[in-house]
């Protein structure tokens, strides 16, 4: 059809009344009143991507904040107080953290609700996709399955963590967090959450690029291969960073287990005040923490 079109632009006009070699399918359109299709599917699709992008970027920032424990306990203490507005207001205001967490939780719930549209809605659909995936052995189809299950796990794991931070924003600090991880027995949840979030986020960012056609370079297939490598590197880097950070909290939590509940007081030189030789800091004892 198109070859004929190309020729028609260069060849002399055909003999009058000669029918074209390949008649085009044409329709003479008459105006029919038509119900306007809802615009919501477009908005929901965009919202799903936008909320996913926000959560992935938040995840990146969150991992860097949390891993500041690897620099020093004071560094993490500084980051935690910073988000409570301690450097702008007269005193730390943990409710600011609650507001941020509340916002993240709202976006998280929105994203989960939007993502549900893509979940298998019946056993028949579940079975059809599972069989398809097993038979096709296709990388990106398999990645979606992984994204689905990690997303499902996040419904529970991330909700528990976010709720804890929402209601106890003041309990973010070197001792407070370490006690929560170890004495509060949260480390298994954090371990699962780390893998689920980083795998889900990495695949999600990769799929976002494909979905909206962000394929830098002249060759989309080569760009996709590069993005896939980037996606793997993303997940591995943040899982590694998270594991090392979690290990640091576990070690600190074990060391601090006997004084669990004691609040951290910065030494100014990175040495915990209560562990500094000869320091006499009156511990502020709070109830043992289990949430978040």
């Amino acid at each position: 059809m198109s070859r004929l079109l190309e020729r028609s632009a260069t060849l002399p006009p055909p003999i009058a009344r000669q029918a074209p070699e390949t008649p085009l399918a044409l329709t003479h359109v008459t105006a029919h009143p038509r119900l306007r299709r809802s615009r919501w599917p477009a908005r929901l699709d965009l919202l799903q991507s936008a909320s996913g992008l926000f959560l992935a970027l938040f995840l990146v920032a969150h991992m860097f904040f949390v891993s500041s424990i690897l620099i020093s306990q004071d560094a993490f203490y500084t980051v935690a107080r910073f988000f409570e507005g301690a450097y702008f207001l007269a005193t730390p205001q943990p409710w600011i953290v609650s507001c941020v967490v509340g916002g993240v939780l709202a976006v998280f719930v929105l994203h989960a609700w939007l993502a549900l549209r893509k979940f298998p809605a019946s056993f028949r659909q579940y079975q059809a996709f599972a069989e398809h995936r097993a038979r096709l052995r296709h990388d990106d189809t398999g990645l979606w399955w992984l994204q689905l299950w990690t997303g499902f796990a996040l419904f529970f794991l991330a909700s528990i963590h976010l709720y804890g931070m929402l209601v106890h924003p003041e309990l973010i600090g070197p001792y407070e967090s370490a006690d929560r991880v170890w004495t509060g027995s949260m480390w298994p949840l954090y371990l699962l959450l780390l893998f689920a979030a980083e795998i889900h986020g990495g695949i999600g960012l990769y799929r976002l690029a494909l979905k909206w056609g962000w394929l830098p370079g002249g060759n989309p297939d080569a760009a996709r291969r590069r993005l896939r490598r980037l996606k793997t590197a993303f997940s591995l880097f943040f899982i590694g960073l998270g594991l090392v950070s979690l290990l640091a909290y576990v070690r600190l939590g074990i060391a601090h287990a006997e004084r669990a509940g004691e609040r951290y007081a910065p030494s100014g030189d990175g040495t915990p005040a209560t562990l500094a030789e000869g320091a006499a800091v009156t511990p502020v004892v709070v109830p043992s923490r289990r949430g978040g």
Partner: protein
Amino acid sequence: MSTDTPRQLTLRILRSSPGEGIAPHWQDFRVDEAEGMTLFIALNEIRDTLDPSLQFDFVCRAGICGSCGMLIDGRPGLACRSLTRDFGPLITLAPLPVFALIGDLSVDTGSWMRGTAERLETWIHSQAEPDLTAVEARMEPELAEAIYELDRCIECGCCVAGCGTLRMREDFVGAVGLNKIARFRLDPRDERSDEDYYELIGDDSGVFGCMSLLGCHDVCPKGLPLQTQIAFLRRRMVAVGLK
């Protein structure tokens, strides 16, 4: 092949004949591999020498007609474009899913494709009264090439069979339908606007249902740029949705 003794291939074929009440079952056929042998040649050899009742479709034998699409070791592909040397000694063949089964490896892609074409109105829409004797309007060669690139679709059904979304949601238009919309959207003779196209694919059975698994892109035997076309349509349809 460099070896003197040809490989003996086992083609494990999922056989069935709904019309005759024959339930699906696997049947093995053994053939000697020949130089440059395609699955199409192997299937013909089986039908000629082993079992004349074996059903499979073909017309062109050159990857143009799209008739011989089937699942080859689980992946959709064209039998005439698949060299046996690219596979192991045991090759499983099954009919394409989604489409109505005629028998053995033969499926009715035509009815499905026609239904999609009617649903998506994949023909030129013009307010002008068509004059079939008039010289067609000139078109820039680059544009004609771009249209032709998408027009290379042979409706073999491989993208349909490779689509995870379509396996779950049978009303999804699939890459073949979206590619056709992209093709007519390019065509200056088609007077439809993006708002018109939104009416056809602006929901979860259209472009917003696509989960970007890209099985379609990766199994397309014609190498059509499906991933970029679907992404482009998604951006255009979202733009309509935000107006």
